[in-house]
């Protein structure tokens, strides 16, 4: 956010707004719109556009070429192709260094190609392995890579692989063999995401844009909400099976994470995470109220109550979030 209005990005919309407010005249508006379109800027734009679209077409063309010839390629050719790409990416990452963004991008590409290699291995030799085994193997192979260079892309890939392996294991083994219910699967996935969230908070809390945290908070909230809303929609809220017990465990795991956010709010308050958690809470309150209203069997009264509930919870939450925002702004101003 710009701290002074003059630090705001100059654009045509702002110029038009100033003209509309009478702060500048038509001549100044026309001149400003011309200055915004400087020759240098257009040439930079054309250069960037041609590079991005041209490179994209070229890469897609090459991919289409291999897709066309894939069936007729011999297995050794397929492996040679993939492993050449893998080696190229790995060497490129080594050459650029793992501190640079391009090095990290190449490192991540090589990590993705490990999985593609495993998939092709399974396709060529028909190993008969379940899909979750591929992802477990892939995640296991990437552990040393993660330890060597735990940059954000690599961490996000690894967390995604572990979560996916777990969900696939549940779908292919645990649920069919009655070890877990569908609700229990989601709750366990939420608990796993909460554990990753805690590790992220503990190890990498000072990193710039915390999008891994946002993804993990969103995933935890979605996974908790689906079974919780299911419980709410049925009569009685008692704990009936291990899935609900696990829900409590997952909530317990998410609790310390929430505590960590709040404890550090003076240092760096995360309004995005708070909004996500708040939205989830509102959803539960509205669902609970909805169930109460349905049980009353008074539609007219019900819609009135629902209107007030949504207005009330939204107003309350927005009031709280705005207070937190002001609190953060005051904290940032006080900081040297």
């Amino acid at each position, binding site marked *: 956010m710009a701290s002074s*209005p*003059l*630090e*705001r*990005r*100059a*654009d*045509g*919309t702002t*110029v*038009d*707004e*100033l*003209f*509309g407010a009478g*702060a*500048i*005249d038509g*001549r*100044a*508006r026309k*001149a*400003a719109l*011309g*200055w*915004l*379109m*400087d*020759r240098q*800027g*257009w040439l930079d734009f054309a*250069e960037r*556009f*041609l590079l991005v*679209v*041209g*490179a*994209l*077409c*070229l890469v897609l*063309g090459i991919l*289409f*070429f291999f897709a*066309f010839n894939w069936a007729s390629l011999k297995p050794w050719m397929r492996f040679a192709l993939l492993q050449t790409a893998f080696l190229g990416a790995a060497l490129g990452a080594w050459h650029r260094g793992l501190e640079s963004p391009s090095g990290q991008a190449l490192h991540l590409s090589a990590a993705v190609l490990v999985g593609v290699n495993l998939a092709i291995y399974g396709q060529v030799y028909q190993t008969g392995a379940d899909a979750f085994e591929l992802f477990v193997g892939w995640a296991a192979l990437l552990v040393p890579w993660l330890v060597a260079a735990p940059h954000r892309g690599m961490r996000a890939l690894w967390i995604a692989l572990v979560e996916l392996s777990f969900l696939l294991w549940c779908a292919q083994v645990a649920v069919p063999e009655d070890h877990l219910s569908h609700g229990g699967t989601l709750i366990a996935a939420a608990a796993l995401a909460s554990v990753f969230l805690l590790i992220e908070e503990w190890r990498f809390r000072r990193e710039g844009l915390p999008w891994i945290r946002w993804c993990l908070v969103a995933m935890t909230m979605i996974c908790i909400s689906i079974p919780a809303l299911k419980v709410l929609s049925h009569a009685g809220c008692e704990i009936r099976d291990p899935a609900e017990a696990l829900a409590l465990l997952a909530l317990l795991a998410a609790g310390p994470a929430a505590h960590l956010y709040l404890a550090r709010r003076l240092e760096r308050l995360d*309004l*995005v995470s708070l*909004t996500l958690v708040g939205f989830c809470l*509102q959803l539960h309150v509205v669902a609970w109220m909805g169930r109460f209203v349905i049980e009353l069997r008074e*539609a007219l009264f019900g*819609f009135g109550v*629902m*209107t007030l509930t*949504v*207005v009330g919870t*939204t*107003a309350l*939450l927005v009031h709280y*979030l705005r207070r937190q*925002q*002001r609190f953060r702004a005051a904290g940032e101003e006080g900081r040297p």
Partner: protein
Amino acid sequence: MRIATMADLVARWKEERFLGPKGPEPIMEALSKDEGEETPWYVKAFVVAGAWLASLFATIFLGMLLATCGIDDFVVAWLIIGLGAIGLALMLRRRFPESLFATQCAIAVSFAGQIAFTLGLARHLRLETWMFLLMAALFTTILYHPFDDPIHRFVGVAGTLLFLSHFLHHDLKLPYALHGLVGVTAWAAGWLFTRCECLHRYRPPAYACAIASPALIWVILVDRKSLDTPVWPATPLLALGLVALYAWVAEAADGDRKALIPVVLATALLSVVSTPGVLVALALLAMGHGRRDRALLTMGILFLPLFMAQFYFEMKTSLLAKSGSLVATGLVLLGARAYLVAYRRKRDGARP
């Protein structure tokens, strides 16, 4: 000097003596008014969702209340609900102009009221598209100035265009008129964004036209078998529009008009070999870059790969031919970039 922030712009205005006797004071005042307490977009999104949900419940509640109050005549009930809701929305908007929640509630209630009124009237007369089109156009025009909210204005114009396209195709059975509508909306957006001096008043219709044009092309492309219309008729209109846009760029950026010749030729070639959607996406990108408008740029960035993917997907050739044409396109574009880089180096080197 490259203009990046408002401070740069104010300095340039000062330097070129464009500012009045009060200097930059009115500008600072106008900019500070907007600044206020900036709510993050995700909190705004949360408020918007809450407001629309609350309005939905409130509208159903009102409808049920009227139904239980013993008003037997269905039409009268819906007309009363409709007008009452529009009045309530206007009152909310006027009473709480700064409140985001109240504004969103007002928008939702206003549209609920418009729908209720139109349904009541349509049931009384005849349920036909022209009725919805007429009412949407009427409400958009009547409420445009009293209800001064950009979302309300945008949805009003976009809804009217939607009914208009449906009316042209399904009621009048004039599929070619859709191409005309594509051209008209594209030219209207172009004129509003590049030539209109009152854009601050008509920005919502400008965005509605800017999004309607590629959306209509997409509908024609996807549904052209049932529409029984080819894709090409919109192309000349759009190619001409793109050329007019180049002229605007050259005029505003004080550029070399000779440089326009290869660009115009490339556009002509593109309009022959490609789909009209690519032309609209390019126009959106050019306008977005020229005005530094993120919304237009985002639309261009989203529509360009969409239309390109659709074009290659629909090519009735083998994967090998598609691959060849993609590689050729990529090489031509990269070649053009190499030429541009060399030209800039030569020009910068020649400059003292």
